């Protein structure tokens, strides 16, 4: 197993928005997900779909920034998404061979076909760049500002990590950009979920440091995945200096709390968070008697590669 860079003596020192969200939601959830690295047997369709979609669009913008035509870049990412959404089988040498099957998403809206459709529709909706519109920003060394991973020191032995899919210039200002997918309608209520938000406030904080330039805020391209169609909305988010400082203050507090819980091996449940976002994946585990949990864990959960924000992508 790879060395876990984000932990030192069992205590997490490399943090990101996912770790923060988990620790803020519930310390018991943090224990299961970040310390034990166990997840339910069924992979979340939303994570899988969102990950493949974001990867495709990130790659699309990378190709475009390298000078590839829109249609060629689109064909390349369609090829990649078709490949990534196939459950491959391998020969003894580890090479992909024919066989396997399309990944079963087990969801009426988020399917392999709607994934490919959404990528193509997104490119036709937002993929065209113009000189007076949104354009990929180029760093001082000339490289396009896409797929920017960062690990910034919060203190002497604490780091905050993240990954900016793309930084764009618009109206003479810089914005980070992110992709979201949802099965819900793209209402103002949907976008209010991102204000406030660890991931995006963290981007605004880190963006200034990574780019060595002021960042006006962020742009969220959201896709509503429905049966038969995909609808898009674009929203702008900005953070004041005071909001960013307040977020930093809360971040330090959360990290201290989670580190203390880890040192004491005491992870109390936050019972008010069990129903959030359609229900916590560990809810059933917490619901049974403590004496039965270990057996329940073994039969209904599996161990995955440890979350390691400090490890470069």
């Amino acid at each position, binding site marked *: 197993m790879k060395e876990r860079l984000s932990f030192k003596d069992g205590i997490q020192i490399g943090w990101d928005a996912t770790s923060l969200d988990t620790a803020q939601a519930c310390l018991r959830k943090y224990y299961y997900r970040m310390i034990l690295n166990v997840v339910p047997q069924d992979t979340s369709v939303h994570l899988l779909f969102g990950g493949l979609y974001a990867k495709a669009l990130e790659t699309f913008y990378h190709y475009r920034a390298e000078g590839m035509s829109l249609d060629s870049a689109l064909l390349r990412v369609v*090829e990649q998404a078709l*490949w990534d959404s*196939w459950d491959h089988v391998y020969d003894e040498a580890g090479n992909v061979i024919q066989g396997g099957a399309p990944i079963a998403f087990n969801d009426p809206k988020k399917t392999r076909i709607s994934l*490919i459709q959404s990528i*193509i529709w997104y490119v036709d909706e937002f993929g065209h760049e113009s000189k007076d519109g949104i354009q990929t920003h180029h760093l001082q060394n000339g490289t396009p500002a896409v797929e920017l991973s960062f690990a910034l020191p919060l203190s002497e032995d604490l780091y905050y990590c993240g990954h900016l899919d793309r930084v764009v210039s618009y109206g003479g200002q810089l914005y980070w950009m992110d992709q979201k997918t949802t099965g819900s309608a*793209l*209402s103002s209520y949907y976008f209010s979920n991102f204000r406030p938000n660890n991931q995006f406030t963290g981007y605004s904080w880190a963006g200034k440091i990574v780019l060595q330039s002021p960042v006006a805020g962020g742009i969220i391209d959201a896709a509503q995945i429905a049966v038969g169609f995909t609808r898009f909305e674009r929203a702008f988010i900005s953070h004041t200096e005071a909001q960013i400082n307040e977020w930093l203050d809360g971040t330090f507090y959360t990290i201290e709390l989670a580190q203390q819980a880890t040192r004491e091996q005491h992870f109390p449940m936050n019972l008010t968070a069990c129903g959030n976002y359609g229900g916590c994946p560990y809810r059933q585990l917490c619901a049974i008697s403590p004496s039965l949990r270990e057996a329940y864990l073994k039969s209904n959960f599996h161990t995955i590669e440890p979350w390691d924000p400090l490890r470069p992508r």
Partner: protein
Amino acid sequence: MNDIARVFSTHPLLHTEDDRKAIVAEFRAKRAVFKSAPTATKAPKAPAAKINLDDLGDL
């Protein structure tokens, strides 16, 4: 190959550039139909959440 359903059920190693072009063309055509459909036949768009604080009275 070029039959969309068949492309989706076939291993990606067997796909050709023409297969991928056919997929892109198919979904672009579908989008054109979706975009040109009268608003009434499209799925309703959720209204923006509007709260009039005066309607809430004293909280």
